[in-house]
């Protein structure tokens, strides 16, 4: 049953049609969660007793950082699936993710830097977490560059998958860097095995924003995947039907 569904799902025309509908629904959800998260974070949540209102940057900084790691894992897993089982859709997902991941990594770094200025007094510090996040940005950019530089799309996709796999070691380094090394960056408050050590009123908008960003990733990924699919299957008959439908 599942195999039949997977088979149907990975057929290009079916995926194209389904993703089109999915994008519309996900967009509605995105607006809802964004509104909830932003209202909760910017208005409802009480100001931090130490940092005042500047802590509200957390509501973009932390979800962006979470996404930078999450997207990398999605990319690495789908890349592995593409390498081992040669599923076209997995290949497309792994290849369309890096730009979105790079965007979130960039956001995490920039919002973190803006937050750091009032909090730590400096725009940047070379501690373990910031440095490894910067390296993650280089990794994403390298993957994008590699894909655009190789002409044959199949070869390019597989090269990207290999490099992505090799770079997976960076992810645990980023996550655990605040525990392994003495860093200026704050330690983990949400993703620990204990109860989260953050006030519930401050936590809920954070989770809403996290969900919103994941929805965003899904939408952006679907949009990019459809384009990639169109480009790869230009000569297919279903594409003609799509063109006529437009």
């Amino acid at each position, binding site marked *: 049953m599942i195999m039949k569904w997977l088979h149907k799902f990975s057929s290009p025309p079916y995926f194209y049609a389904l993703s089109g509908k999915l994008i519309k629904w996900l967009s509605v959800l995105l607006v809802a969660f964004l509104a909830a998260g932003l209202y909760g974070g*910017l*208005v409802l949540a009480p*100001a931090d007793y130490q940092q*005042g*209102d*500047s802590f*509200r*940057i957390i509501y*973009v*900084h932390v979800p*962006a950082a979470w996404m930078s790691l999450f997207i990398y894992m999605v990319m690495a897993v789908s890349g592995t699936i593409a390498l081992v089982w040669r599923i076209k859709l997995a290949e497309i997902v792994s290849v369309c993710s890096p*730009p*979105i991941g790079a*965007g979130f990594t*960039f*956001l995490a770094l*920039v*919002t973190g830097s*803006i*937050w750091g*200025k*009032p909090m730590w007094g400096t725009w940047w510090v070379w501690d373990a977490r910031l440095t490894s996040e910067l390296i993650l940005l280089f990794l994403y950019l390298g993957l994008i560059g590699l894909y655009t530089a190789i002409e044959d799309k199949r070869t390019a996709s597989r090269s990207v998958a290999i490099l992505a796999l090799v770079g997976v070691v960076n992810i645990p380094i980023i996550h655990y860097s605040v525990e392994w090394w003495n860093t200026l960056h704050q330690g983990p408050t949400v993703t620990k095995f204990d109860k989260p050590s953050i006030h519930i009123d401050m936590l809920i908008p954070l989770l809403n924003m996290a969900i919103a960003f994941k929805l*965003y990733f899904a*939408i*952006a990924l679907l*949009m*990019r995947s*459809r*384009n990639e699919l*169109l*480009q790869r299957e*230009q000569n297919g008959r279903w*594409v*003609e039907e*799509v*063109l006529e439908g*437009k």
Partner: protein
Amino acid sequence: MSQFLEMGGYAFYVWSAYGVSTLVLCYGLLRPYLDHKKTLREISLKRRQHKRDLND
């Protein structure tokens, strides 16, 4: 309202952070949207040319 805008004196930091985020995320959706239109245009162009070549 003014408390909302001033963010306890941190207005510059908070709003520039949210501003950058909005810009980047909007671009991240705008780009594939425009690319989609471009791709459809290019493909239909190529197909028309191909049909023309076949008819010659």
